[in-house]
């Protein structure tokens, strides 16, 4: 696959609009996010090695938001995403499937999974593939719990459970492995990231690498980090999965998105997650 020149055809017009934005000077860096007065979140830090020369600093999506949205994430009571975490806790402790087990039967409590979100997606030796948290949950349901109707990849129940697993890992440094057996998927993800999609001929990079901080309509483009997912979007008034967000982005290029849970989106998730190595887990974050 070839990487087209960034300024070509339709996208030149799009970028002209993007470039009319206010720019990074308008982004208020240097803010501090401490959740519940105890969980320190890294909202800006040095980029991982593979992005040296691309970014001087990587920023959590939190940095791009208004005071009101920022504040909503600083306290679990104010964060509506925690409502879904609570539903996740209930499901965690409820037996499902023919084996009569709940998640708690093996994992005791959600806190025992605190290290998960920061290191996923990761290579699964047994299945010979890179797995997301969602895929791991499905594996538990189908291979260990005997659940006849496992959660849909982007279902409310799945998002609740992933939000729970993220919430107990908040503050942990994102550190996904991109080498070894995961490298093939990582390379695929990287290729997708820089590929222009749709009638608008836009790649992930054109908005989130070249134009973060600029306005797209009246909204600031972020760096497209996924450390805050599943994220509570004010727009949806619900928590939103990473793949749902990817699908929305590609759809907005007027392209044909990959399916949620597809190998392409798993690879893209791994690559995008690796661009946030050094930030901290925030899910469920609050975004617009």
């Amino acid at each position: 696959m070839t990487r087209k020149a960034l300024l070509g055809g339709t996208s030149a017009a799009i970028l002209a609009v993007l470039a009319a934005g206010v720019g990074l000077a308008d982004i208020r860096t240097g803010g501090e996010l401490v959740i519940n007065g105890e969980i320190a979140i890294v909202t800006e830090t040095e980029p991982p090695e593979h992005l040296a020369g691309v970014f001087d600093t990587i920023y959590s999506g939190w940095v791009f938001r208004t005071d009101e949205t920022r504040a909503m994430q600083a306290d679990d009571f104010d964060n509506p995403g925690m409502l879904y975490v609570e539903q996740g806790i209930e499901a965690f402790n409820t037996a499902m499937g023919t084996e009569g087990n709940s998640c708690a039967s093996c994992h005791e409590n959600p806190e025992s999974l605190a290290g998960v979100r920061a290191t996923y997606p990761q290579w699964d030796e047994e299945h010979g593939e890179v797995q997301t948290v969602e895929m791991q949950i499905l594996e538990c349901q189908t291979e260990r719990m005997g659940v006849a109707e496992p959660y849909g990849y982007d279902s409310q129940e799945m998002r609740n459970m992933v939000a729970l697993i993220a919430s107990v890992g908040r503050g942990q440094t994102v550190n996904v492995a991109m080498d070894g057996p995961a490298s093939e998927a990582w390379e695929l993800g990287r290729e997708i990231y820089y590929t222009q999609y749709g009638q608008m001929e836009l790649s992930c990079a054109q908005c989130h690498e070249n134009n973060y901080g600029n306005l797209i309509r009246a909204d600031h483009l972020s760096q497209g980090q996924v450390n805050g997912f599943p994220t509570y979007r004010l727009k949806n008034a619900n928590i939103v999965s990473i793949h749902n967000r990817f699908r929305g982005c590609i759809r907005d290029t007027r392209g044909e998105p990959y399916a949620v849970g597809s190998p392409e989106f798993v690879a893209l998730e791994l690559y995008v997650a690796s661009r946030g190595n050094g930030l901290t887990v925030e899910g469920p974050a609050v975004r617009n």
Partner: protein
Amino acid sequence: MTQTRRQFVGSGLAVLAAFAGLPHLANAATLDEAIQAFTAGADMGSDGITLIAPEIAENGNTVPIEVTAPGAAAIMILAAGNPQADVCTFNYGPAAGSQLASTRIRLAGEQEVVAIARMPDGSFKQARQNVRVTIGGCGG
């Protein structure tokens, strides 16, 4: 209640339809009607009531609003440009610690948020603030 883009656009159209005054929404209270029902047309002062709302809301679905009116018996919050202008009314009882009303409201586009306090002596106070609502770049 995850909305698809199509549904979201549809909801926006419903709001537009409301602005156009289509008959099926005629029962929704306008700003003037809602204020009339609360104040019976009384004059309103502007001292002793504070409305805190963001100048720019990132999304009209969830806009944090805070009103204080020391000594008030009730505080009404209205959104002048919504299909139904009255949003909520806090009525205070003897165990209220102060006359604070803080909530999150929906705004169908840029508009004025209005807060009106009814005092125990039957007088009224109001505060108004314009809130711009950001039109986001992307769905998802």
